[in-house]
Structure formats: C-alpha cells, structure tokens
C-alpha cells in the first residue's frame, strides 16, 4: 500500500485498538467492527462533509450504520476525529452513558439508531430525498451488513431508491462473508451480489474494503452515474487486523478477559498470534 495512506493506516489501527478495548467486561461485536473499520476511517477522513463542529449543519453529509453491530468501530472513529474524548469509551455498557451495543442519537455524530436490520436504507433515503427537495448538497451514506441483505425491506427500499433516482445516496455493503454465525454463501447465498444490485438500478462498484487505494477509487466520483444511487460492495474480512480471529465464524461477538485484550492489542501491533481461552460465543 502506498505511503499516501500511512496516516490512514495508523488511524485505522488506533480505531481497531479502541474497538478491541471495548470487547471486555460485557464484550462487543468485534468481528463486524473490525471488518468495517477501514471503510469508516476512509469515509470520515476523505469523503464525508461532516465534523464535530457542524453536526447540526443541514448541508452536512449523513452516515448511517444500518447493521449497528459495528458501532465500536464508529465510536473509535469518532474518538479519533474529536467527536468525543477517548475517556468516554470507559463508559461502554454503563447505564449512565449511551455507549451500548447499537448506535443511538444520544452519542454526538450518530445520525440515527439501529439494531433492527433492514431499516436504515429507507431512513437514509428520506434524508437523501429531502436534500433533493431542498436543493441541498447533503449526501446520505448507509453501511449495511451482507447478512442484513437477507431482509426483504432492504430490497424493497432498493427498488424505491432507484425509482426515485436518489443519486445522492451511497449504499456500502460490508461484505465480510458472514451472517451472524454462518457464512452467507452457505446459508442464504448473495452472489452475484453486484449483478443483483445493478439489476435493482444501482451503479455498482466492488472493491477490497481494506485497501485505501481501492476505497479511494470507489468513492472518488459520486454519483457514479447521474440519476442512480451508488452501491459500493466492500469485500472485507471479519476481525480484520487480528490474524488469530480473522474469518472465524465463532468470533462474531466476543467478551474477553483483560489479559486477552492485551494479547490482542499486541497482535494488532505485529506481535505473534494470540491464543484466546475465552469461550467462543456462537449464538447471540
């Protein structure tokens, strides 16, 4: 990877470290967080017209996390971009704060809550449509999981997004290959996903979601086609950055001991692979 992206790579590593530190004392959905970390870091650094100083600006870009499980990566990104201080992450899962397993609007920077799959494509379309009606420059980005594409409401909304020509809408699929516990292609196959979204009227691009050069290519020119919503299929790896956990079906949600957190942080920074002793949690 070229040195153009050295700063982004360092930022992404810090975001992953924040997420790993949240995976204890109650745990979090680490697998999906680490698969979409690079996407979030790239979008907030290079694409989205939004910052802590303009959270009420109607001309800002909106980002929606539709699957919601990946919110530790969003919290980490927010810390890196100054939306709130890192110390606040110590409140994860404390009832006195609003940092829990799914995003909600009480956290500065979160545009909408999620947790129930298949909702935020349509919500983001409402925002995109209003930007069109008002002649504003806002764009709506929505990150969905690939397992989430089982939900019929995603496809219903996709029909409407195309019918309404919402070319200020960008659907990003975190294509990490997993439903909750099972590989997508084993349970409910999605391929050829690009062709499916194309047939629904999206301008589709497929990239490696961990390669900033490819992400740059995906988001360089929006809309990719006038009058059409864009779909970016970002091929990713569950638990990316932690070779000992990458692509493991049973490491979707993890609740680690403090020692295991330290081992994984060392692994993230290039030490050897950690060996976890905590129970894999298969069903949640």
């Amino acid at each position, binding site marked *: 990877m070229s040195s153009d992206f050295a700063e982004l790579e360092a930022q992404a590593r810090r975001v992953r470290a924040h997420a790993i530190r949240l995976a204890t004392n109650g745990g979090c959905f680490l697998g999906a967080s680490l698969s979409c970390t690079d996407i979030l870091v790239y979008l907030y650094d290079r694409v989205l017209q939004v910052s802590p100083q303009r959270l009420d600006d109607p001309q800002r870009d909106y980002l929606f996390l539709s699957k919601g499980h990946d919110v530790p990566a969003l919290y980490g990104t927010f810390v890196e971009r100054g939306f709130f201080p890192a110390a606040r992450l110590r409140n994860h899962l404390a009832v006195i704060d609003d940092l829990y397993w799914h995003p909600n609007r009480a956290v500065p920077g979160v*545009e909408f809550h999620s947790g129930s799959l298949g909702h935020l494509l349509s919500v983001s379309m409402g*925002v995109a449509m209003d930007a069109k009606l008002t002649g504003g420059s806002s764009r709506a980005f929505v990150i969905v999981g690939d397992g989430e594409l089982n939900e019929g409401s995603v496809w*219903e909304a996709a029909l409407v997004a195309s019918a309404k020509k919402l070319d200020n809408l960008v659907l990003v699929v975190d294509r990490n290959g997993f439903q909750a516990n099972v590989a997508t292609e084993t349970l409910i196959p999605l391929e050829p996903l690009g062709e499916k979204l194309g047939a629904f009227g999206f301008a589709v691009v497929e990239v490696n979601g961990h390669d900033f050069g490819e992400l740059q290519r995906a988001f360089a020119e929006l809309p990719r086609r006038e009058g059409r919503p864009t779909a970016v299929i970002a091929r990713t790896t569950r638990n990316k950055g932690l070779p000992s956990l990458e692509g493991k079906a049973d490491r979707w949600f993890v609740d680690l001991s403090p020692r295991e957190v330290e081992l994984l942080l060392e692994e993230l920074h290039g030490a050897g692979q950690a060996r976890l002793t905590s129970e894999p949690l298969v069903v949640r």
Partner: protein
Amino acid sequence: MSETATYQSTLLALVERDPRVLVMTAENRAAIRELPAKIGPRFIDVGICEQTMVGMAAGLALRGRVPVVHALATFLTLRAYEFIRTDVGIPGLPVKFVGAVPGFLSDGNGPTHQAIDDISVMRTIPGMQIVCPADDRELCACLPEVIASPAPTYLRYNATSSKLEHTPYQLGRAEVLSEGTDLAVLTAGFLTSRVVDACAILRGHELDATVLNLRTLAPIDEDAICAAALACRVLVTVEDHLLVGGLYQIVTELLVRRRISVPVVPLGLPGRWFRPGRLGEVLEHEGFSAARLAERFQRAFETTNVNSYGAR
C-alpha cells in the same frame, strides 16, 4: 372551515401553508387523488412499500419535515409496525400515519383488510397519539391540530358524512353529544353517529343516555370518562375493534386506576373477525346498526342495573 371542505382540500391548505408538510402514500390515493398535480414533488408515492414509506418518513422528519403518510390501516399498522415503533416511535418523530378503511369501513374486503387491532398495537408505542374522527367534518377539523402537534400520530381515517352537530375540536378532549343519567355510552370514530341515533331511539323508551365522543384514544380524556362514570348507572363502550386493547380496555384500565366502581358493558368484536359484506348489512349482522345498538343498550341497562351491586 367551509361547508365543502374535504380531507383533500384541508390537507392541501395545510401543505400550502406549512413548507414542512409532505404527503406520502404507499399507492393508496383514494383520498388524495388531486394532490400530485397540485403539490408536485411534495407528493411522494413509494409504491406498495409500507415499510420503506415509514422508514423514509422517519428520514424526512429527521430533516425537519412533517410527513403525512397514507396506506390502508391494516397494512400500515401491521406490516410496517416495527418501522413505526422503531424508526418513528423511539425518536418520537412527528410523522402522521393516516390509516384508510379502519374497522367496519373495510366492509366487503374480508379479514385481511380488517383493521380491528390497529388501536391495540398503536397504543403500545410510547408517545403515539391516536385520533378517531367521527365523520368527515371532524376529520377536517382535527387535521390542523394533528399536523401542528410534535408527536407521532395515528389517524383512523373516516370521511363518512353524518348529521352530528359538533362542538369546536380540541385534540385530547371528548365531546359530549347528549346528557343523561341512566347510562353513558363511550365511543369514537365511525360508530359515533350510530350511537347517537340509537340513543334517540332509547329516549322513546324513557332511557336517557350520556353520549361521549372521545375523539382521541391517546391521549384519552380521563376527566370526561370519570365524570360520566360517576354520573351514570352503567357505562357502555362501543368500538369497531377487538375487545383486546381497544376502547373497552382503555376505559376499564382508567376506572381501576381511579378506583371508580361501575358496571361496564363492552360492545365490540369479541375475539373474531367480522362477517364481510355491504356496510349496512355488516352493521346489522354484527349488532352495530342504530336499531341493534338501541336494543343492546337497553339490555345492558336492564341486566346490569338489576344485577349489579355496589355500583353507587
């Protein structure tokens, strides 16, 4: 309000007056047929996609809009229920849900179209207002308040005409349509004018009834209901809804909480869908025509009045 005001003309005036208001529909245009030509891009038809419509309405409301969304009541409240609860209910966004052909108004459609559980499910959503106009004039009268209110609101659409003479509309306040001390009939929506006609028949049998048109079921006019309960020997609730979760339970929960002991006779749908058919025949068959209601009120009064104890 002019004599010729309709739902459509009233909504159009509100759209023209308030730039926040948008009209959406899941291809249910019966009541808003002329609006596309009149309001252009502020009319949004998403096709037969109730869930997407509600999700989009939430997104539009996030941007400061007040979407007025239209679909058949049963598909809106049931198919899109989780979107209403999750995307509109949790953040408390000002989306207005207009459900067509609720209750008996689905006449010949059959059980798939019978919204007789809509009030039950909508009232479980914290902060959701439920508005049940008695006729076309009340439908037009309630609309400015519904749209001005910051709360999410379910409007049980009823554009049927009636001979009722209404007092000025106030959201959340009941209307007293007649006063008597023998029994109090509590109702809302389409059945209201049948109840009034039934009570006119009762006066020929020397029974005087208070009739309360509740107008909204959430918020409910607690003081009006309690006053009627304290003034009358028997309460009767009349609703085109299942007895589970509707007016009867709203009223009895209130009376228990206020520790008011009075016989309450529920007239509604007791755990089954109604027989589909022409509206007049449906009402007759199910016991909700004016004549049938009068008989049932009289029976309610006689049986509870003789058998009850400790009510006064």
